[in-house]
């Protein structure tokens, strides 16, 4: 779980030097970058995970507006007669994750999108399904009834997307390149949202399900392996000997580097010992100075947010 506080990040680095662009070699969730994407700075975003890069393209870099009304009318059909379950590639998710009706729509939406000629429009349609999966997965655990029918929630989420991209003019470049192959250009600031190896959250579960759906299969283990493989040498593990060479390489041409993470159930002292000091040691050949910032979120459970800025 990571609470990226973009304005705080800019405040922290602003005390050291101004930035007109930020490079994220990897990001944890597209919507967390919304605030930055509306600022007068250039964002270079990379996700080694193709499904996440697609979401960022559809939600953050879309300057051409939202999903067209014509396409919505055409592709947001109501399924009146249940589809043959045997034909559905996601059938093993039945009951465990989704209802039969939801599975029908997941199958239909994925296939229908291929009929959309414009790639940007197609990606918006797929990216909207991410929000719908989120809605269904979080609601399935609660007794509350779901008021919106699948076609209604699709229309609602398409409208949300329109509002989200409205007036978006920021300069954003999004790539989908493996971290090992990522070229490191000169940049004033490189930002690393830290991801932890053993962390399973609602969001990581959602990303796994979406990745599988995006690739047209229901094998969640395969999807989990794919994602982990893309993030190898980026995920932080307290179990293994730290190897931060990927971070150091990606920061090689940046004037400043910032690491951000959110702690939970562990005292700040432990994060200083397990992350801050090893990172300081790893980055010592590149930067002379560093500064740690932290904020209280909920002291009763030792929840603090952290920023570690390297410079000089």
């Amino acid at each position, binding site marked *: 779980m990571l609470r990226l506080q973009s304005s705080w990040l800019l405040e922290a680095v602003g005390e050291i030097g101004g930035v007109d662009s930020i490079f994220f070699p990897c990001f944890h969730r597209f*919507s967390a970058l919304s605030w930055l994407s509306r600022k007068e700075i250039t964002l270079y975003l990379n996700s080694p995970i193709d499904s996440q890069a697609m979401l960022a393209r559809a939600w953050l870099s879309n300057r051409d507006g939202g999903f067209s009304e014509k396409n919505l009318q055409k592709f947001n059909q109501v399924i009146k007669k249940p589809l043959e379950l045997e034909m559905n590639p996601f059938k093993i998710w039945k009951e465990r994750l989704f209802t039969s009706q939801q599975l029908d729509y997941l199958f239909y939406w994925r296939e229908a999108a291929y009929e959309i000629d414009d790639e940007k429009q197609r990606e918006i349609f797929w990216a909207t399904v991410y929000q719908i999966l989120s809605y269904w997965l979080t609601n399935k655990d609660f007794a509350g009834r779901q008021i919106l029918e699948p076609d209604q929630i699709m229309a609602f989420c398409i409208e*949300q997307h329109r509002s989200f991209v409205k007036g978006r003019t920021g300069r954003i470049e999004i790539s989908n390149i493996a971290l090992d192959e990522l070229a490191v250009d000169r940049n004033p600031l490189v930002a690393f949202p830290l991801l932890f190896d053993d962390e399973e959250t609602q969001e990581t579960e959602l990303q796994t399900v979406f990745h599988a759906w995006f690739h047209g299969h229901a094998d969640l283990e395969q999807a989990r392996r794919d994602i982990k493989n893309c993030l190898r040498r980026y995920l932080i593990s307290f179990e293994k000997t730290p190897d931060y060479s990927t971070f150091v390489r990606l920061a090689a041409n940046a004037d400043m580097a910032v690491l951000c993470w959110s702690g939970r159930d562990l005292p700040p002292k432990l994060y200083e010992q397990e992350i801050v000091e090893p990172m300081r040691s790893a980055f010592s050949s590149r930067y002379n100075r560093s500064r740690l910032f932290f904020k209280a979120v909920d002291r009763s459970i030792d*929840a603090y947010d952290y920023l570690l800025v390297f410079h000089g």
Partner: protein
Amino acid sequence: MLISVFNAVLIVLVTWLAYRYFELRERTSPTEERYSQFVSGVASIVDRIEGYDAAHSLEVAQTAEKLALAAGLEGEQLQALKAAAMLHDVGETLLPREILRTAERLNDEQTYLMRTHPLLGELHLKSRMQTPDEVPAIIRWHHERWDGLGYPDNLKGEEIPKAARILAIADAISAMRHLRSYRPKQYKSQKDIDAEIERQAGLQFDPELAALWLKLSPAAGNN
């Protein structure tokens, strides 16, 4: 001029009261009642600046407390939530008065400015505090949405601290009870409001807390 002289005076007053509140909280062990009186004083000034026709902050704090108790919050967590609920719109005192008082729908630029108020509120309070405290963070996140499409940080789901999720529901309930320039729709009864809370469960609101509210609501026949 972004801040008028009138606003500047009010800001100084609000800052001083907030400072007194946190100073008391750190240095002495006054009763909860004493905290509440201070915070309530600040909140009533904020409400007045915003031009609300009712004690919005107090109403939000009462709803938030009810929901928080049912959700199992207690001690420091509960106290922090109550203070944040009272002060959640303090950042609006730093905005031009015409935005707060307008009866018309806000344009894009005004909406953008309006959306800075959670950040301004957090910064304003944090600048007066010498030790880490969660009240500014709760204020920062009271407009976040469960689905990640809120502001300012687009936090999603459980990334949003529970206190801020509770405050978001309480603030929305109070806002729906009264006319607002940014929303043409007027909710006529508590039942209408609860229907909207239910509709937004898993979208705008934490579904678990929304379900809890539906049991606690005056319209559910409990009160």
